[in-house]
């Protein structure tokens, strides 16, 4: 099995630790991982702003980098959802279709493809889990509170394999953090308020760390935590699953 690691643009630049943990975790689980160097961005920032027609260049580059692998794995639910829903190319329709079916967010890759049953990880802290909307409602990584349906959680299953971790219950278990791509600057007031409220829920319930499968939401909440000089930190789920 050959897996290509897709590291979203902002993770590459600002959160290399999350990408590194993803790589090391996959290797620890015996997967052969490649990192195609030419990769940049999936095109989501433009597409969600209404400029999907400008994403042709990103699409072609993405296809060039990622075709031919068994799986493409990424530590970001949002970027994976964008690729699944929107990657297309008139020049390479088959390759783009293939990639759309082979791209996985890290936690779903671990639970659904590798079928991981145990992990050698320890994280002795109180942790709040942020359900990022695109991962949860788009990729269905966990059950959604709006539906009348049985609960499940792929990130939750994995975190429960970690020794000494204590997961905290939230008052609103799957509300959006307000990041929303360009929404965070275009609708600054509401975005910040949503972020503050989400962070407050974690703090109220005693989280020392806020984790999740999407670094963009964590980046947003980190911005708010640091502004308030909070001792609580954000950490990507890959870093917990890869911790000793």
């Amino acid at each position: 099995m050959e897996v290509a690691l897709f590291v979203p643009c902002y993770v590459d630049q600002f959160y290399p630790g999350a990408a590194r943990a993803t790589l090391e975790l996959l290797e620890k689980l015996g997967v052969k991982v490649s990192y195609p160097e030419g990769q940049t961005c999936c095109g989501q920032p433009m597409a969600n702003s209404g400029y999907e027609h400008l994403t042709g260049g990103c699409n072609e580059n993405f296809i060039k980098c990622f075709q031919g692998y068994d799986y493409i794995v990424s530590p970001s639910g949002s970027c994976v959802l964008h690729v699944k829903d929107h990657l297309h190319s008139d020049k390479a329709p088959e390759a783009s279709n293939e990639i759309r079916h082979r791209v996985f967010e890290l936690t779903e890759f671990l639970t659904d493809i590798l079928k991981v049953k145990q992990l050698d990880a320890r994280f002795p802290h109180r942790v709040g889990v942020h359900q990022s909307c695109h991962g949860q409602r788009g990729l269905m990584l966990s059950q959604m509170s709006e539906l009348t349906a049985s609960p499940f959680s792929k990130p939750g299953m994995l975190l429960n394999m970690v020794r000494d971790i204590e997961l905290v219950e939230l008052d609103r278990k799957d509300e959006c953090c307000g990041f929303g791509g360009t929404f965070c600057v275009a609708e600054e007031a509401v975005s910040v308020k949503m972020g503050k409220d989400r962070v407050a829920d974690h703090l109220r319930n005693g989280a020392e760390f806020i984790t999740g499968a999407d670094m963009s939401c964590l980046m947003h909440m980190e911005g708010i935590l640091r502004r308030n000089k909070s001792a609580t930190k954000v950490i990507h789920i890959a870093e917990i699953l890869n911790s000793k």
Partner: protein
Amino acid sequence: MHTDKKHAALADIFNKDEARVNWHDQTLWFVRAKRDRLTHDLPEWEVLRDTASQIKNHALSRLQHYLQEFEEQALANGVQVHWAADAEEHNRIVCELLKKKGIDRMVKSKSMLTEECHLNDYLAENGIEVIDSDLGERIVQLAKEMPSHIVLPCIHKKKEEIGDIFHEHLGTEAGVSDPQVLTETARQHLRDVFITRRAALTGVNFAVAETGEMVVCTNEGNADMGAHLAEIHIASMGIEKLIPKRAHLGVFLRLLTRSATGQPITTYSSHFRRPRKGQEMHVILVDNGRSRQLARPDFKNSLKCIRCGACMNTCPVYRRSGGHSYHHAISGPIGSILAPNLDMQKFADLPFASTLCGSCSNVCPVKIDIHNQLYKWRQELVKAGYTDKKKTIAMKLMASTLASPSKFKFAGKMGRITLKYAPFTVNNRFNPWYKGREMPEPPKQSFREWYKGRGDFGSS
């Protein structure tokens, strides 16, 4: 409410009073939580949603057929049927019906369609006074405001503020905000209205093609009080309100109020089928852009909406920006996909007033893919040129940088260096991110730089 301000600016004003935002958010979250309790108790809930969605899809796909069937049945029942292509024609029909009978005062129960058509303003200009009989609507009417929510029109007002309005208009004592006293005052006031008005206008929740009947759902019984006492009853409905059969009500009535307010059923679900002796009953079937929306493949299923407001209650943006920030009679996520159909330029901001979190689509009782339509409207609006030119330039630059590995590497490094050595260039009031949040701390190395150091680059 007339404003040139866009959603972001209006939301910014709303957020100046954080305690009020908290109160508004928690009030609506309470309704969402109530809805969850009721719906999670029904094992067949998701089947009901599916069924409702399919009935509506079917009805919309054969709308002409069902409209004709409805008209035939209604006429046979002795109801007079009118067709209005747009808001203007609808308003004119209502006005003429009233003028013909020499009526200059009318009572009206809740109808979002008449808000959409700005009927009250039109009739006022023509010398006809309208009193809204839904309590929430009456309150915003007295306050000279638009409803901020389609089911809970005055949810943005605290009881003390309502007390002040009642003191000014209905003569309650100053400072009284006891809900019991205020509702009793409203009852007395509206009773007088019901008894003295010769004309009543109601909305329509569901119109049944098979029987020609109209079903109006209220919690206050105000539609009934108006219609039963008046000599002329006018029912205004959008053409998308049709359902094929009466049996289908068994699906929709179970979904509507559970979704809306977390009640098993509305207090009054009244069926109006034929006029009583001596009464005139009219129905006005209004298009006002609905056929246009029906012809848009990406957006036609927005017409399945049964106006429950669940998408508003669950929307984290709506709860923290208030209904008025949408500057349209129908606010929230559903308003944001319906409004651009009416006026793309005026409502070009609304599809962007969302994080695309998708909660709206999950609570929708008729399974409208609201968040996907928000995404699609963004594409349409940009293509049609209704976006800021500066944003277009920025997006083009971004797209060209991100499409090129070398430009991206360079820009990424520059970005990190800027943040590290010249943070003052971004950490200032011109950067909207920085206003309420710290910028990320720039790492020494990007992932790709670290990976290169590791010395095993994969094929690319």
